[in-house]
């Protein structure tokens, strides 16, 4: 029973982090109908940012996520300005291929600058601490990261649904031309959305180095899981992404524990295929 609860907790904690990464992707996908293939590499860049701030300046990830969130906003906005802007209105895969090039670029720049070594911050405020209740262990770094992820997701959702900016974003997503006729600067909205998408993954990546080692390939799996989560949740739906991410986290941890660790991602990707066979537009899609 305790093992079951522990696996459940691990799944939920991982799932919430995936959810934040996926929320960034979901925003971009939902508003611009673009798959950002470099999304996982954004996470990697954010993790390196937070890692180096920690290693060189001694600032803990609990604070440096602010910097990496801001930095990734910039990177997202730059991606839009320099690349995505030119692919809007073209075939859907041109943006995907361009961001594949970007992914290759970012990954190898980090490889060149920082070597392929795994790097982990050793003395962090949260590192190594655990809370135990009734035999179930909550690792504090994971717990804090997961809860912060949840807070950020709720904030983003609130922003999209309840603020004027959010309405403008929704309007742009629904009908670009009509939104422009209503006086919305859609170009600015796109820029902002790409920045925000970057920020989401930037915050996640900023928090992760307190328990996850950084290396140039670290983003690959997160990126893939984010694609699957967003597609499973449904076109640009943030609650869908949250729900799907929790499912992915749970399937990952349960199949890893009860079947075999090597099969956990096979199970995750098979789950995705199964879900879209039944609902081709995802769980919350239409």
């Amino acid at each position, binding site marked *: 029973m305790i093992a079951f609860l522990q696996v459940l907790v691990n799944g939920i904690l991982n799932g919430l982090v995936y959810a934040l990464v996926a929320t960034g992707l979901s925003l971009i996908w939902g508003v611009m109908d673009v798959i950002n293939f470099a999304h996982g590499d954004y996470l990697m860049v954010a993790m390196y940012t937070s890692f180096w701030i920690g290693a060189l300046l001694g600032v803990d990830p609990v604070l440096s996520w602010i910097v990496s969130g801001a930095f990734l906003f910039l990177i997202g906005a730059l991606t839009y300005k320099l690349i995505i802007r030119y692919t809007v209105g073209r075939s*859907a895969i041109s943006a*995907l291929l361009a961001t594949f090039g970007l992914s290759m*670029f970012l990954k190898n720049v980090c490889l060149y600058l920082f070597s392929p070594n795994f790097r982990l911050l050793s003395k962090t405020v949260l590192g190594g601490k655990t809370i135990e209740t009734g035999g179930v262990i909550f690792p504090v770094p994971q717990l804090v990261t997961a809860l912060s992820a949840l807070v950020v997701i709720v904030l983003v959702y609130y922003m999209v649904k309840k603020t004027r900016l959010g309405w403008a974003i929704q309007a742009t997503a629904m009908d670009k031309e009509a939104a422009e006729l209503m006086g919305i600067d859609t170009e600015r909205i796109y820029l902002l959305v790409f920045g925000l998408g970057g920020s989401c993954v930037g915050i996640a990546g900023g928090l992760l180095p307190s328990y996850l080692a950084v290396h140039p390939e670290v983003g690959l799996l997160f990126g893939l899981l984010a694609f699957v989560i967003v597609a499973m949740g449904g076109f640009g739906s943030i609650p869908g992404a949250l729900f799907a991410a929790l499912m992915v986290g749970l399937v990952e941890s349960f199949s890893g524990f009860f079947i075999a660790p090597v099969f956990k991602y096979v199970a995750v990707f098979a789950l995705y295929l199964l879900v879209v066979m039944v609902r081709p537009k995802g769980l919350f899609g239409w």
Partner: protein
Amino acid sequence: MKRKIERKDWLLFALIILFALLPAIPGIRENSLTMHVILMIFLMASMSQSWNIVGGYCGQVSFGHSVFFGIGAYGAAMAVVKYGMTPWPGALAGAFLAAGIAVLISWPVFRLSGHYFAIATFAIVEIFNRLFMVWYWVGGAIGLDYSITEQGIVNFVWYQSKVGYYYGALVLLGLVFGVVRWMERHRIGYYLRAVREGQETAEALGVDSTKAKLSAMAVSAFLAALCGAFFAQYNYRVDPPMVMSLDMSMKFVLVTILGGTGTLFGPLVGAAVLVPLQEYSRALLGGLGGGVDLIIFGLLIILVVVKQPKGVVGIFSYLRRRMVERESVGKEND
């Protein structure tokens, strides 16, 4: 039905003759880097052409072709390494298996559209990659290494020179391009293009779109698997990340997009641009360490996609259109 031989056919034919004569030029045969680059162009062009059937002519952008490529590679390697046979039966078995698997997988996946289809094909690559990583019968993560056998066409291995591989790749190129040219001119090719332009419309006109898409997928996977078998023979080894990975899948798509999708010569042009860039940047910059060549390559991909969405073939047809326009304008002025 008798069909006229068009200019395209002559061009294809002439190119293949030209390629066949290329090693006769002194200096090319001896330089193994040049030979390597040219034969990689042939291989890449064949791979992308096989993808082009589904992705270009039929408009179903699949990122799953490394699975079929990998099955072909494993087919050849299993025959050689596990059973001590020549690679031929393995390659053929791999190709049929790949076609079968392609149909089985595609049946449900073709119901998805747009990004959902693309991501489903990502997921399939990941599933295959991870299963092959732990499947000890096919060598697991270590992969399969060839032991040294007698060189020649029977074992399809050569050690001292690349000439054998060169002509092997050329035959592959001729086969794949021939098949696609045949499809382009026959009913199936028109069906595929009709499905790409509008599935509902095509169906309304009596095209069985599912059948068209599935047969395109089967042919495409069959040819991709043959390319995979060649790749395994050329590298004397195979392992999952080498053949069944998203990076490999991306190459199928990139080369075709760069050259021009849904055109006969697009894949060849794309490969002729991309392969030398990749191979020479690796040869020149790879020594700097830390993936400098891939940094440049990544930037080039961005540049190409952003600046030339219709591919290099698009530039040519644009220029030709401009010339025709200018001629007709000139005539009007006369």
